[in-house]
């Protein structure tokens, strides 16, 4: 109750007002437009119920994009957290230049995604750095057109994304590791645990809150991926790397506004459901500790 006296609730009003007018209302109006026939050819907008959603299911392109988005999200979430955790463990141990390395690994996530896109498209060129390096190692048989080959393009993009955001994940894990009471680590050392056992049974369980937030953030971030795909392949070749947001972008370019909005609502629902399930599962894990 003391808290309420110090900060009256109405102080929230300005923020809620800005939030409401700039985010909530446009989003809710998005829900409304998805049940209309709004498009570039129409003078007036009419209510058509779930027609747009029916068309989305009939055409099936959204499902294809959704599939790519899911694959992408799983790869990115797993790799980004794996790599981020490894980096965090290494950079909280006593090694020389620790702070310097932390800065270096964090740096990519402050760069513009478009710039990362251009850098990686140079790396992925058929005669780019990556293939040259593989040839230098004598691994010619692995070389491919990393963005032009429809079978690997989606994975190439996810690697670029992982490279960019692993540092961010790392930063959260480092904070989590530093929060772990020293006594617990020392106790396990006295008990004669090996390094890996210590990580597995002491550090990792105590990192659960960091793990939850990292998984949720990378999951949501990769489900609504747009820029990096747009910069690297624009969804091509063909529709091999088409994700939901590039699909929506294409629909808007064609002037099919309500249709694109309906696709956006589908994405929103998918993200909401997946995030809530993930949050529920991960939270439960935290509680059990």
């Amino acid at each position, binding site marked *: 109750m003391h808290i309420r006296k110090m900060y009256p609730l109405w102080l929230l009003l300005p923020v809620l007002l800005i*939030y409401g007018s700039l*985010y*909530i209302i*446009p*989003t809710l109006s*998005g829900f409304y437009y998805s049940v209309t*026939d709004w*498009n*570039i*050819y*129409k*003078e007036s907008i009419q209510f058509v119920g779930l027609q747009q959603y029916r*068309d989305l299911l009939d*055409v099936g392109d959204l499902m294809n994009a959704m599939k790519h988005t899911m694959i992408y999200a799983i790869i990115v979430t797993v790799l980004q957290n794996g790599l981020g955790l490894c980096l965090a463990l290494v950079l909280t141990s006593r090694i020389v230049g620790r702070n310097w390395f932390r800065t270096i690994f964090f740096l990519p996530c402050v760069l513009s995604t478009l710039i990362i896109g251009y850098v990686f498209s140079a790396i992925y*060129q*058929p005669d780019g750095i990556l293939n040259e390096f593989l040839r230098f190692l004598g691994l010619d048989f692995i070389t491919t*057109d990393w*963005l*032009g*080959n*429809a079978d690997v393009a989606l994975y190439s993009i996810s690697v670029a994304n992982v490279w960019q955001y692993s540092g961010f994940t790392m930063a959260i894990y480092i904070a989590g590791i530093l929060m772990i009471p020293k006594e617990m680590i020392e106790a396990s050392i006295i008990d004669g645990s090996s390094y890996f056992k210590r990580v597995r049974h002491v550090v990792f369980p105590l990192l659960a809150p960091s793990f939850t937030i990292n998984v949720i953030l990378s999951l*949501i971030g990769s489900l*609504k*991926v*747009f*820029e990096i795909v*747009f910069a690297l392949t624009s*969804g*091509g*070749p*063909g*529709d*091999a790397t088409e994700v939901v*947001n590039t699909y*929506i*972008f*294409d629909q*808007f*370019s*064609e*002037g*099919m506004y309500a*249709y694109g909005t309906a696709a*956006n609502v589908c*994405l*929103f629902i998918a*993200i*909401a459901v997946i*995030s809530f399930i993930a949050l529920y599962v991960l939270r439960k894990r935290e509680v059990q500790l």
Partner: protein
Amino acid sequence: MQRKKRVWFALLAMMLLVVMTACGGKAAESSESTATASATASETAQAQASETAAPKKDPVTLKVMMHADWAKGGPWAEIMKGYEQKSGNKVDLQIVSDNFEQLVLTKLATKDVPDVLFFFSQSSAIKKLNPEKNLVELTDEPYMSRVNPTITKYYLNEGGKIYGIPTSGMNVSGVLYNKKVFADLGLAVPQTYDELLAVSEKIKAAGITPFYEAGKDGWPLQVFSFSGFANLLDKQPDLMEKINTHQVTLDQIPEFIDLLQKQVDIVNKGYANKNLFSGTYDLSLDELATGKSAMVVNADWALPTLLAKYPDAPIGMFPQPFEAGSFVGISDPQAAYALKNSPNVEQAKELLAYLAEPEILKQYYDAAKTMPSWLGIEAPLNQGTADLKPIVDAGKAAPFFNGLTTVSIGDFAKELQSLYGGDKTAVEVAKALQKNMDTAAKAAGLAGW
């Protein structure tokens, strides 16, 4: 109390989610990098203008909007300067580089319109501008009689009314080829598809890439079909009518399927560059100019860019060979439109009339070196364009078919990438294009769907 808290928490969590997901969609729209370059005349020119030409009315500033690529294609800054001196008005030339179409449509929707707009000229594009409401009709303007009738027949109009004047040449599609490579190997220009394959085989044997395909950019892949369809339109004059009224679907046109198959066969037979999906338009011009590749399927709009970089490149053009006497495709020219809702409608119309004056047209075409969209303009042509001019003059030319459909066929380039990548067959590509048309036609409420 507890319950209230929970409701608050749920509400806030909901808001957070909404915000997090909503931002993703917004990023696309906010990336409109509108490089708006103001190219008003230099101050000296203005000073001269006020001294020499005594303007009749109060001078106004006309906002003229165009795409950056078009601004590069002709001496627009000088032409506008000329207009400023003559009329006393000022011109604010707004040049947009990315997301041009979306930006224009957004500006129209928010009524933040320029006075004169340079835009595409197909009926389907004009339809998007909602011409009845937004554009000044130009059907009865005296200068309209000087526009090439082919252009007014196929382009510039919507619903039987003409709204724009052509502001670029007619671009013709075909095969750009390196004459030196052909001469060195003793090859003649192929007339039929089989001859084309034979020529490609010989070029390949000599260690030169026969065709360079810009698979990454995607759009150049469309030109093959544009040229091919021109032959089809000649043989079946009512074909477009049938497509536009849904009497025939694209996958039911065997000639169209055959066309797509012929296109992908060139790749399947190994006559195209390796790593096709890394190929870009710019690279295709480099490869062609330096003789590393012998042929590029595209249109003569590539010539000014290519010759600017390689002035002595021996580049010619021939019609895309399907059979003896093959047709070439003609692209839609860009066009200028006057906006109805602009406060300076009279001056905007005046500017269009100025752009249609023969001396100004001559000034443009002397620099652009493309086939004029206007009658009675003699202008120098680049070599490749000159190669195809006799064919156009003989009437063996028809417009790109994607400009003749009443609604868009969607992202043709993307479908062709799927075809080249082996993900779709020719029939599946045709079906996908038809599906795109169906969606748009239903949205527009067209008869027949």
